[in-house]
Structure formats: C-alpha cells, structure tokens
C-alpha cells in the first residue's frame, strides 16, 4: 500500500508560487517503485524538473529493475543520473531553456517482490527511512545542504549520490521524506517522540495530519510503501 503527502509550504503559499515537490509511484508484476523529487526554488522550471526526474527514475527502475539490483554502486548512480539528465535536457531543448532551470533532488526506492530485495537511491537532502517490528532505522541520510547540495543538474553528481542495497528482511514500511517533511519530524538529531510513535505504529495518516498542522515553511512531502501490501 502506498501512502503519500505532497503539500505546499507556508513560504511558497505566501509567495503564491507552486509546490515544487513531485512524487511518483509505479508498479508491475515484479517491482514496485516510489520516488520523490524536490525542485530547487530559484530554478524557473523546478516543478517541471522535479516531475520529470521522479517519473524518469521510476520508469527506468521498473523497466530495468533486474539490472539495477545487480549493478554496483557506481553503475547505479551513473545510469540513473545520466538518464534523468538526458530527459531534462530533452525537455530543456524543446522549451528553449537552460537545463539548470529544471534542477531538483531525487530519491527513489525499488522493491523486488519476488526476491524481496530493496534498492534505495538518493541525490540531495531527502531522507529514506524504514520501520521494522516496532523499530525505526535510517536507510539513507540526507546530504549536507549547509553549503548547497548536489542536484540532478550538478556536474559529476553521480559521485555524490547515495545507494543502499539490502534485503527487506524484517522491514515492513519504507518512506522517502523531503527536507521540508523530515525537518518537522526531527529535533536534536532524533525523531520527535510523537512522530516516532506514529511511524512505528504505521499510523502514516496521522503523520500526514501532523505535518499539515506543523505547516512548515518549505514544501513538505513523503511517499511510503508497505512491503506486505504492495502487490
């Protein structure tokens, strides 16, 4: 089962601009893929860029899941980034724009229902985390964005992408959060107790309500997948 939230932040709302996060979900007989892209605010076509990136990576992983689950870290990163960049460039050329106008972060999870293997990929400051029998663990930490972080149009971005391949094992749910969302869920490096309760009890509808109540400045989004109910 997929749950999601994609909400405009208070700042964009006040500025009457659009929500620049984009979510994507795809499934076939073998694989389930979820993706989240967070457009760079100052980029003119950030929303379109985020949509293209999340759709491109979802389609690629669904189509070539078997390859990606066999690839090593560098191959995964290089293929995904090159594919997204190609798609962005096509769009930029068609619209007579610079490709940088379409910059976004990108994070994605591929689940192989047959072998119950999992591939997590992230470029930028999104968080990928999972819950298992009452516990919570971080699968991919957000990149440091204090001095700027890498996005889909950064040169040599694949070098800074993060990849985590693992077996599902005892994990039951995995979720990708944009920085606007996890920023509201954490305090002093740790999950806020109320958020921790929601996650470990799989009360993701409550998490959705909680984030909306917090109404953070930045756009806030998450997309989650429950492994047992994803078929």
């Amino acid at each position: 089962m997929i749950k999601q939230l994609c909400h405009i932040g208070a700042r964009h709302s006040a500025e009457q601009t659009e929500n620049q996060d984009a979510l994507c979900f795809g499934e076939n007989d073998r694989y389930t893929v979820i993706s989240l892209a967070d457009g760079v605010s100052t980029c003119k076509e950030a929303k379109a860029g985020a949509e293209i990136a999340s759709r491109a990576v979802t389609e690629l992983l669904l189509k070539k899941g078997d390859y990606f689950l066999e690839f090593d870290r560098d191959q995964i990163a290089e293929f995904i980034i090159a594919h997204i960049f190609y798609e962005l460039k096509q769009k930029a050329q068609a619209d007579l724009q610079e490709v940088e106008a379409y910059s976004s972060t990108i994070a994605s999870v591929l689940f192989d229902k047959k072998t119950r293997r999992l591939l997590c990929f992230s470029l930028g400051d999104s968080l990928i985390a999972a819950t298992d029998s009452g516990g919570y663990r971080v699968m991919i930490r957000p990149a440091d964005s204090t001095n700027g972080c890498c996005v889909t149009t950064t040169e040599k971005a694949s070098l800074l992408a993060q990849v985590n391949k693992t077996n599902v094992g005892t994990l039951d749910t995995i979720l990708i959060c944009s920085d606007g969302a996890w920023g509201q869920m954490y305090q002093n490096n740790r999950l806020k107790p109320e958020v921790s309760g929601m996650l470990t009890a799989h009360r993701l509808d409550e998490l959705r309500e909680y984030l909306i109540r917090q109404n953070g400045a930045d756009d806030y989004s998450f997309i989650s997948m429950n492994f047992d109910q994803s078929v």
Partner: protein
Amino acid sequence: MRANGTITRRMHSAFSGLEGEFKALYDRRIFETRLEDLKRVGSTSARPSKLQKLYDLFEDCGISFEKNRETEYYEELIKKADIPFVQDLEERMIYAVYRKYEQYPAPEDYMKRMVDRLSEEEDHWEDDTLRLRILKQFIKYGNYLKDAGYGGKKAVQDYVKDKIAAAEGKDKAKIKVTDEDVLKLLDDGVFDCLLTATKDQKKHTLALLKIADDLGSAKFLTQCATKKQLYLFAMVYGMTYFTGSEAELQDPKTDIEINLFRDYYTNNLIRFLRFCSESDEQGDHERNKQGDYERDPSGQGINYKNFAEIVCLYYIVQDCSPQEKIRRSYEMIKRVQQSTAEKKFPEPMKDESETIYYKRYARIGDDEAFEDILHLPEADFEEFICTHYQTEKGTLSSVWQVKSEQKSAYKTYEMILNDLLDLDEGLRKRSFEILRRPEESSPEDRLSDELLDTFPVGLWFIDVKSDEEELFHTLCEKHTDVDRKKFKELMTLLKNMNDFLKERVIEDLKALCDPEEPSVRTTPEKISRTVLIAAYYYYYIVNFVDNHDGRETSFPELFKRFQKDIADRLESAYYMPLDSRNIFDVLIVFSAYAYLNL
C-alpha cells in the same frame, strides 16, 4: 527545497573547492607529451587509451575537438589552441590562488555565519556586534554562565545601571535591573573594560566578557581553554552531537563536531598563518607573545579520552534547556573530581588506550562490547565515567587538559617521517651531513644544494616566486582586480606557511637524522594536523618523484590521489580529512603539484 547555495551545473561542479579553479591549468608540455605518446603507439591497440588521455586534456581545457581523428588533426589542434607556456601558467596559478583567497571568509565572518544560523529569530539581535550577540546568548540562555564558574554578571549589570543612571539622572545604587533590561540596554561599550583589565580580572570578574570577546573574534586559546568555551557555546546555541545511532540524523547545521571542531579549526589556521610573523590591527601578535593564543591550532577534534568533554557531550545529547545542560554538566564534573579525590571508586586502569577505544563509547559502532554511554541514565553514566576514565587532574591547570596529549597523531607523524627517510637509503645519511654544517651558513644554504635535489625546502610559491613586487606588477598588467593590500596579505600567508614547513618538519627531520640521538622535537602535546600534512607533503613529493613521472598529472587528479593517500593517516590521527575548502590543504597539494609539474 531552499535554494541557498544549491549547486547547479552552472554554479559549481560537485567539487567546489580550489581544485576546480585549477582544472584547466595545463601547460603546453603536457599536451606535447601526450601527443608524443600517441605518435609512439601508432595504430596499435594502445591507441584508444592514449587518445582518451588527450581527450581528457581537451575537455578539461574546454577545447572543442572531434573524436577518433588522425594524429595530424590533434597535432594541428594543439598548435592552434591557446595553451599557456610554463611561465604563463605560474602566473595563472598565483592569480587563481589570489582569487580564491580574496573570497575566503575571515574567522570572525565564519563565526558570524554560525551565530546567524543558530540564533533564535525572536531575539532580534542581528544588528549587534558579534561578541555582544554571543554575550547576550550566554546571559539569556546560560544564566551568565554562573554555573560554569564564570564571573561577570555584576560587571554587566553595573554597566547597564550606569547607562540608566546617566540617561535618567537616577542614583545608581537605587537602580535594579532585570535580565530583560540588561538584554535591552546592553551595548558593545560593555567590552571597553577589557582594554585596561588585568589578567586576573579577565580570569575572574570579567570572565564572561572575555569568553564572548574571544569567541566573537574566533580565537584559539592555549591550555585547552578554547575547548571549554566551545562546549559552552554549543550548549547555549542548542548545538547537537551525533551518537551514530541508526535512528538518528546528523544535522550538519548544528553538529558540534562539524561546526566547532572542523571548520573552526580551519578558520583559525588561516588566522595563525596570517599573523604568526607580523602584527595585525587587533594586536593579536602582541597578545600571542604573552602566550594567550595557540600558535598552531592542533586540529584535534573532540578528545574522547577527556572525561570533562564526554560529560559535556552527554548533556548536549540530553533533552533539557541550555541552562540545565551547563549546570548539570559542571556539577557532574565537580562530583566526579570529588569522587576521585575521595577514592569512592576503584581507580581506572592506568591504560594507554588510544582515542579509538574511548570514541566507541560515544559514537556507537558495530562493536557490541562497547556501551552506548551517552544514552545511559545520569547516575549510571557518572559511575561509568568514574570507573573507566582518568579523572585525576594532578598538576594540570584544568580538567580539560586531562589526557590531552595526541598519541595517535604523534605516532602517525613519526611514521611518516621515518617512511620519508626510508624512501631513499642514502637520504638519512646525506641529510644529516648537510644539516650538521657549521652554523655560520644560513639554514637555506645548508639545506639547499643536495637536499633540494631530493625534495623541496618549502612552499613552491615562495621557492619559485620570491619577488613579490615583480609578481604583483605582472599580475596587475593582466588583471585589473588585484588589490595590493589583499595580495600582500596572501603573500604573507604564503611566506608564513613556507617558514612553518621549514621550521617544523625540516627541524624534525634534522633531529631524526642525528645518528647519536634520533628523536623529533615535536611532542605528542605539540603535534598538529598542519604538521602532519606538511610531513606527508615532503613524503609525497619524494615518493612520487621516485616512482612516477608527475608531468602527466592534472591538479584535480593529484588532489584526489593525495587526498586518498593521506586519508588513512589523518583518520588514524583523529584529524579531519583533507578538504578542498581548506586553503592550507589546497595550497600544500598545489605546491606538490607545482613541484612535480613545473
């Protein structure tokens, strides 16, 4: 996502340090060498790899080219392209360093950025001076640091009372002020008293003002005093410590290790290199003569062997107010010392364990034998400290100095020096012979001739480009944006760095070459990240010259290789990795590059 500083393709590459600036700095010889290689292999199977090397050069320099063309095509392309000769390249390199240096923030700017980031918006102190903002933070969130034993509340309140008395014509003795009044009326004039204060006053009755002043100008104090200050700063600004738990996130914006023990060091290192041989406007040099400030910031991160630091980390991790964190940590430090004096617990084993052993207690790893002490209940944690850490201060002047020697770093340093001498069997002997020449000749004379054949004496920029005035004029002819003051500042930094290399590493090598008593002068107490990198710099050049032809290496390639090769050594010494944002690191590697390529 917020756009601040996000790296898009146009703004920067993924590696946004100085190496990017030097990316295209190849001279014509490198092109010619690669062309020769291509001609030599003819149409054999080695051709594609030689071609690729040439393509890389064209790409790095932004020269348009077609792939898989005949050799003559590339020869013609190189002839026509605007590729600099060696002399031009030297100037371009200095100019690139100058441009980067110009943008490099001063330590106080760095501190300001951190304070801006960590301040509560509701306080609205952004128009105050930096030291005043820090002082107000200590007052509001740290209760004047009274619980940490800092005096100064009276001086601050008296200053505000004087201000009210003068403005309203009231009798000062009858004026009562609240913290709210203090925060509202305090201005930078409160620091004036420091100018005439005695050392004793600064230590006691004006200690609060002194700490705000020191932190506001981002200076490293000796005898681990800065460590104590940094932990207090971290607590009042709500900084965080990452324990390594798999449920935790490390917040780079508030992380104490990243912000205070890495970047703070980097910025102070530049200060040291800028003023270590001449006076600056604030009289740092004069004050440094009195031994107030560290000469060469050690670069030591969190000292996991020091119990006081671990106690502070414990409370930084706990969920309580900054004031509570300060009060409870200082109370625990006192109780632990008391327990030690009263011998309440069996003495911890006199162990010589290295930092890694203690680090595992505070940064949870895979080793289950180590307890996650930062998440223990308070009483259990205290007992653990009493039974596992050396808490006896002995003759040291503060608890922050306990176990402050850097054995791991020292060991690594010694190993590098020995590796360097082992590279060339004759080097140890020859070096000693050169170095023991009569004192009447200058150190450079003694070192130059033979030793220079084997490795350089200092920094390439100074060895090669010693005429500052000539260089300045050459640069001014080509660029209109070279500021004389800034350029002079950079040249001072380079000269100081050059002196530093000679003084510390060469002196230690000299001592090590003495067959009668081989020992280095740098001690575990004096070792620093800078010295370690400097030693490795010599090792790298000699090793590289022995094993490779450095002329085919681009700066980014060399930087990455140097970074990779030194990584283990820095890690085993508990120093931060080589960082392209650190101007010292970049200049060192760049100097190696220049020696190997020019």
